[in-house]
């Protein structure tokens, strides 16, 4: 196999030229382009990394802020709930107090109204009853009844207990004016004399007596001197009965206040011995 040394030399030269041409037209531009692209990609990646880091930082900051906001909101909410509860309780308390006050006031008003009504009713009833009784007794009262009354009065004077007698005697003695004897009707002279006699006997003294007629006594006689009074009249009976009935009606109004009513007994007296 012959080797053509000219061809060898020519091919070697050709190869060297080819190396230079390829370097000039292929490798260099390609490597430059690749390097430029790699740099660009690296720059973009670095930029992306920086942006990512920044984004992460902002995200962390945002999350932190969010957590803070949540905490603040929860605090404010719980505070607001507490305040609302307190305010609600306060308002409820106020409302309860107002309601209780209103209720108490209403109860008081009702009680007063009931009391007034019962009083009015009682008074009216009493007045009616006594008006009827008075009218009946007035219609019945006659001179003979006055006589009888005078008798009863004189007997009373005689049967007076010693304490009352002493007090009345003292009053008669110290009185400057004459003792006043009032009756519903004009007393006849016999009865006036009987009364004088009874007084003189009872107090063993000459008692000055002045007689007067008083229609409001209905029926009966009374002796009044120096602030002391001895009386016997139907009006006194009625007055005593009226007091008992008024006491009974007053007790009847009290149960609304939770007080158990107590029975009121009407005094059972055959005659009224009254010293004012």
């Amino acid at each position, binding site marked *: *196999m*012959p*080797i*053509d*040394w*000219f*061809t*060898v*030399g*020519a*091919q*070697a030269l*050709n*190869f*060297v*030229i*080819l*190396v*230079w*041409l*390829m*370097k000039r*037209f*292929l*490798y260099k*531009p*390609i*490597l*430059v*382009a*690749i390097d*430029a*692209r790699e740099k*660009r*990609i690296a720059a973009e990646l670095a930029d992306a990394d920086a942006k990512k880091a920044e984004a992460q930082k902002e995200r962390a900051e945002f999350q932190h802020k969010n957590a803070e906001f949540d905490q603040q909101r929860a605090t404010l909410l719980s505070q607001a709930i507490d305040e609302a509860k307190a305010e609600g309780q306060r308002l409820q308390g106020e409302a309860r107090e107002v309601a209780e006050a209103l209720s108490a006031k209403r109860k008081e008003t009702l009680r007063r109204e009931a009391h007034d009504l019962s009083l009015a009713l009682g008074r009216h009833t009493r007045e009616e009853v006594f008006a009827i009784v008075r009218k009946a007794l007035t219609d019945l009262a006659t001179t003979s009844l006055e006589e009888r009354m005078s008798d009863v009065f004189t007997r009373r004077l005689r049967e007076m207990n010693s304490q009352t007698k002493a007090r009345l005697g003292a009053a008669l003695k110290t009185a400057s004016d004459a003792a006043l004897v009032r009756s519903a009707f004009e007393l006849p002279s016999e009865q006036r004399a009987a009364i004088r006699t009874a007084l003189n006997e009872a107090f063993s003294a000459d008692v000055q007596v002045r007689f007067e007629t008083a229609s409001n006594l209905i029926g009966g006689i009374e002796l009044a001197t120096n602030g002391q009074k001895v009386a016997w009249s139907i009006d006194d009976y009625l007055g005593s009965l009226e007091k008992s009935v008024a006491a009974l009606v007053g007790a009847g109004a009290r149960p609304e206040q939770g007080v158990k009513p107590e029975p009121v007994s009407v005094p059972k007296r055959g005659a009224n011995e009254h010293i004012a």
Partner: protein
Amino acid sequence: MRLSPDEIIFWQYGFFKLNATIAFTWGLMLALVVGSKLITRKLSENLSRSRWQNLLEIVVTSIEKQIEEVGLRHPEKYLSFLGTLFLFVATASLCIVIPGYEPPTASLSTTVALALCVFVAVPLFGIEEQGVGGYLKSYVEPTFIMLPFNIISEISRTLALAVRLFGNMMSGAMIIGILLTITPFIFPVVMTMLGLLTGIVQAYIFSILAAVYIAAATRARKPKTKLAPNEA
């Protein structure tokens, strides 16, 4: 029968002649340079690029990666030489599909020329890397007695490089020529396809061996690295 395209002479003037080897080499050079120029004329530095640019980038980066894998630390420095070696031999082999084409690598003159280029380039790269003294010292390593063996090794491997490529390329072309005379149908096509494969393999082997030689020359004089404690 022709064994080498050197025998086809188009023009001769004394020592100077223009044979098929040189002519086809020029054709290949023209194709490579024009093709490269056309593709690199409008290179894109953006992320989007043309398919041809992609192809060239793949080829160039693959060669660069191979050089790096052999053990050369700065592949871009050796890329022009080793890449051109590979591209020239591969193109010369691939073009056998063109009718009437004679691969220049089937000429012993061409392969000897390429081997001589490697033979010259290896010490040049070695000296560039380590200096003249450093490179020459590699011939007396590990002892002075090894000097003749190293020189013989240097020459013989260059010769082997040349003959290996020549033998493979010449035999491929020869077999196809013989088969064409015996069975003109189908079988030569198969052999041609096989020839394409062996051509690429030979281009790869030639370039890789050149890279290994350069790597050996540039790394031989490096101070021996101390073993790490955990590797001792």
